[in-house]
């Protein structure tokens, strides 16, 4: 597809980038004495119009979602290509599917924790799960649901529901990235897969799971080979770090995994992984045409939501500012 296919969308996104929250806004939220004050700072920004009837500090999730929804809508409208947002919103459909399948087996109503950001209506998924008839769902959801349900009947392990659905989700994201025909979309999708795989690798080790479990949990289609993880699993962590060292994830290996070994906490590693992906997306900030600015903007918005959430949860629970700051992701602008 031509580089100039989305100039209108790029123009819009460029104008919208000016409204992304800057570091200083987040710093002001952090320094606010109470959660209420932090929310007030947020209200003065572009998020103000998403406040609606939100009053309490606990409504911040609603505000984030309403703003994200707007972002997805703008991108959809201006690109006339649903693939871009679909790559991001599919995860909400999969989340709803997870909730509803687990809820079905628990025999209780869990609609309260579904997310209204996906493309498929929650009622539709709920009906399909209840009737065990998934033919009305989009094909990726259908395949995923069928596999997860069959597996659960055999294994009775709820963790496997999540793992199977996650695998289907990222396979679908990879396929969509291929379908857009843009190398950048593919790079972002594959980077995300790699980062999640690294995360799976270190967390499986901490949980003391065996290599067979790792093999089932790892996502497909990453740039890093699955065999790299599997072969390093029973070696010391430093062997794995060395293997990553020369590649594109060298920085993460050097600092992130090192900090995991030093502090036995994944905090720094996870922050670095999110920042890594954001940095890759930042290409969109400098590109003036093509899909980079569009994908970059979506990632920037999602990242912004994460930062707001971290600050607000921290503020509500009176976590010291330094401890919140340690977990804050980088910003796009």
């Amino acid at each position, binding site marked *: 597809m031509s580089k*100039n296919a989305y100039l209108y*969308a790029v*123009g*819009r996104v460029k104008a919208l980038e*000016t409204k992304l929250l800057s570091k200083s806004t987040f710093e002001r939220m952090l320094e606010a004495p109470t959660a209420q004050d932090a929310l007030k700072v947020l209200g003065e920004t572009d998020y103000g119009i998403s406040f609606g009837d939100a009053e309490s500090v606990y409504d911040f999730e609603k505000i984030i979602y309403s703003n994200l929804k707007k972002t997805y809508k703008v991108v959809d409208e201006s690109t006339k290509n649903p693939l871009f947002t679909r790559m991001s919103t599919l995860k909400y459909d999969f989340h709803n599917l997870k909730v509803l399948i687990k809820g079905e087996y628990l025999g209780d109503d869990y609609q309260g924790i579904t997310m209204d950001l996906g493309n498929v209506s929650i009622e539709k998924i709920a009906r399909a799960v209840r009737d065990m008839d998934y033919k009305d769902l989009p094909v990726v959801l259908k395949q995923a649901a069928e596999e997860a349900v069959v597996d659960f009947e055999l294994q009775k392990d709820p963790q496997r529901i999540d793992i199977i659905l996650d695998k289907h989700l990222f396979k679908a994201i990879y396929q969509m990235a291929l379908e857009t025909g843009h190398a950048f979309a593919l790079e972002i999708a594959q980077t995300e897969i790699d980062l999640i795989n690294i995360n799976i690798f270190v967390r499986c080790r901490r949980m003391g799971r065996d290599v067979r479990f790792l093999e089932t949990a790892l996502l497909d289609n990453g740039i890093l080979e699955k065999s790299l993880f599997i072969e390093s699993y029973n070696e010391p962590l430093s062997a794995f770090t060395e293997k990553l060292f020369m590649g594109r994830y060298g920085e993460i290996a050097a600092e992130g995994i090192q900090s995991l070994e030093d502090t036995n906490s994944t905090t720094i590693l996870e922050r670095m992984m999110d920042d890594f992906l954001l940095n890759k997306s930042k290409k969109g900030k400098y590109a003036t045409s093509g899909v980079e600015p569009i994908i970059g903007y979506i990632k920037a918005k999602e990242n912004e939501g994460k930062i707001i959430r971290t600050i607000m949860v921290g503020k509500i629970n009176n976590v010291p500012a330094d401890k919140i700051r340690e977990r804050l992701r980088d910003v796009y602008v």
Partner: protein
Amino acid sequence: MEISLGQFFAVFGAAIAVLMPGIGSAIGVGLAGESASGVVTEDPNKFGQTLLLQALPGTQGIYGLLTGFVIMQRIGLIGGQLLEISTYQGLLLFSAALPIAFVGLLSAIAQGKTAAAGIGIVAKRPEELAKGITFAAMVETYAVLALLASILMIFGIQI
């Protein structure tokens, strides 16, 4: 009236001198325009600034038209009295039209992209409009040089 091959080439030259930069400018202005509408959708106050940038790739079309006119005037097409032109003279005029035709086409598209990028600058920093224009105007240089070459050649040809 008998029409010679020379006359045909001369008119063909005038035609591509107008045609190709015209197409280029249309594409260029279109690209910049798309980008500009994107910005204006979010921020209608930027209409004036983005319009300025959008107009820049339009100049190649004007240069092409100018070259076309000069050729037409030289061969007497405008006066209504088509001069006698030999095949070689016709081919010479045709060749003279080539620089502006090709440079006009490609530079207009390139300028359109630069202008679209410049609109990106305006979207974020309206005060830096001049820089955006400068970047786009740099592309203009080569269209001007091609125009100059074409015009000089056309006037240099003995008819």
